[in-house]
């Protein structure tokens, strides 16, 4: 059983393909890290796979009707937006929208999903705080909790840990790891290669719109690949917690 199958996905911006013939599948139990330099097409790949961008090729998620897709995959966009001064709990409860009938109140199931999401992100004491009055990192955690409340088999996140403090970064990735262990799946783009190596069960490496490599972290994070794709000279130290990537310099 797979949660997402993408075949030959191409996303074009004008004439120029920003994602070029990408194919991969994601099954339950996987925490997949999507890595690559800026402009490699990570965001376009994620949005295309969800059907939020026009694309060529096939994606099982994009083929679903909108409500069904929302019950299948939660999406955390890169831009963190909370437009109105709503309480943290109400923002997180927006994740239950796909399950609510028009004008219906939260059922006990919805409420427990919201409570679980708040607990997972360590936000129990923030419930009644105004989300717009929180710091950027705290808002990011609130929005992650919102996607958790959606309680979907697949979670797709675009740079969820950017701007978080180191403890919050690790805590978030531990939540993703735990979701994968429960039999769900996570597909997340991220830039911290050491954390990616440590918490992801699999990495997809993108460069210039193409998937260059796809596999277990210790096979993906090699000095040769970092040099070729990231133009990065790095020291890679294998540890018990996965490969540790120490960037040393830029290759001109």
């Amino acid at each position: 059983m797979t949660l997402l199958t993408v075949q030959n996905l191409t996303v074009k911006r004008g004439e120029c393909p920003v994602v070029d013939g990408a194919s991969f599948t994601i099954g339950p139990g996987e925490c997949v890290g999507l890595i690559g330099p800026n402009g490699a097409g990570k965001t376009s790949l994620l949005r295309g796979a969800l059907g939020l961008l026009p694309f060529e090729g096939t994606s099982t998620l994009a083929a679903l009707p909108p409500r069904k897709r929302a019950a299948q995959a939660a999406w955390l966009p890169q831009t963190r937006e909370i437009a109105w001064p709503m309480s943290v709990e109400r923002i997180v409860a927006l994740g239950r929208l796909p399950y609510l009938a028009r004008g219906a109140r939260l059922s006990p199931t919805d409420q427990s999903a919201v409570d679980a999401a708040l607990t997972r992100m360590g936000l129990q004491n923030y419930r009644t705080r105004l989300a717009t009055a929180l710091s950027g990192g705290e808002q990011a955690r609130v929005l992650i909790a919102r996607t958790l409340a959606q309680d979907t088999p697949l979670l797709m996140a675009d740079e969820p840990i950017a701007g978080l403090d180191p403890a919050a970064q690790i805590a978030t990735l531990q939540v993703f790891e735990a979701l994968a262990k429960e039999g769900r799946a996570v597909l997340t783009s991220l830039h911290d290669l050491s954390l990616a190596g440590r918490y992801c069960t699999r990495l997809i490496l993108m460069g210039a719109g193409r998937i260059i490599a796809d596999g277990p972290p210790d096979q993906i994070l090699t000095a040769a690949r970092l040099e070729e794709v990231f133009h990065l000279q790095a020291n890679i130290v294998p540890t018990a917690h996965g490969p540790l990537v120490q960037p040393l310099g830029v290759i001109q």
Partner: protein
Amino acid sequence: MKLFGALMGLTGVMFLASLFVGYAAIPIPEGLAALMGRGNPLFVTVMQEIRLPRVLLAAMVGASLGLAGAAMQGFLRNPLAEPGLIGVSGSAALGAVIALQTGLAAAFLLALPIAALTFAALSVGLILLLAGPRGSSLTLILAGIAVSAFAAALTSLTLNLSPNPYAASEIMFWMMGSVANRAMSHVWLALPIMALGWAALAGLGRGLDALTLGEDAAEALGISLSRLRLQLLLGTAAAVGAATAVAGAVGFVGLVVPHILRRFAHGRPSTLLWASALGGAAMVLAADLVTRLVLPDRDLKLGVVMALIGAPLFLHLIYKTRREFA
């Protein structure tokens, strides 16, 4: 629920006060009887044919503007948005002005509102054409600004070319907005169109809630943005177009009411929709009451009073927001 009760109470009080305050002093019991068509025939005429349509129109216009304002702010995620932004009210005013100028308005009672409604419908068609079926909210605003500017230019041109100062001043006074001297036939013309608009706008709640998280997140939550936009546009056009057609240009309601009530609605766009409808009705009823209580013999215009109330309220809100962000 507390908010709902409070707003219903406020609107109810304003409604009754508007019914029983006026040039002719009619005691409440006799006024009630006259509303049912019993008692002094003069009172019956005053209550049924002068006050009732006026009060009903004030409430309907206020509800339309408040609801459309809340929907527009929710959709654009901008507290400065207001229903006039998409050019419907400007176009409806142009239609009315042309009806006044050509003398069509004098031909039969509903000629003016029907001309205004026709122009409102035309402007929506034009905006859809300009912004495209799937455009972003930015193209929608730009198309609205273009249509508004064009309608304003044509309105000025009509004024410019008006044959005599009387016609010009009639047009000017109409544009200030009023619900005085309206008949029940105005109510029956506007109500079905407004009701369609209210239904379309009230159905936006769920989508507007999701839009709090941005367009991408809302779409991933199962909301169709192109449908939402079309529904908003048609709903606003029907509600605001009909309101302008029967009452002229009444500003500030759609901007200020959602602003005041947002805090009480806990920021939730779906709650703010119906709250602003009730609040808008209460505010326009109150403003109309002011036109009758202050300088009753000088025929103060509703739009003027509304702007006089609305502008200081808005200034106060800006001042408060400034302190919050300082």
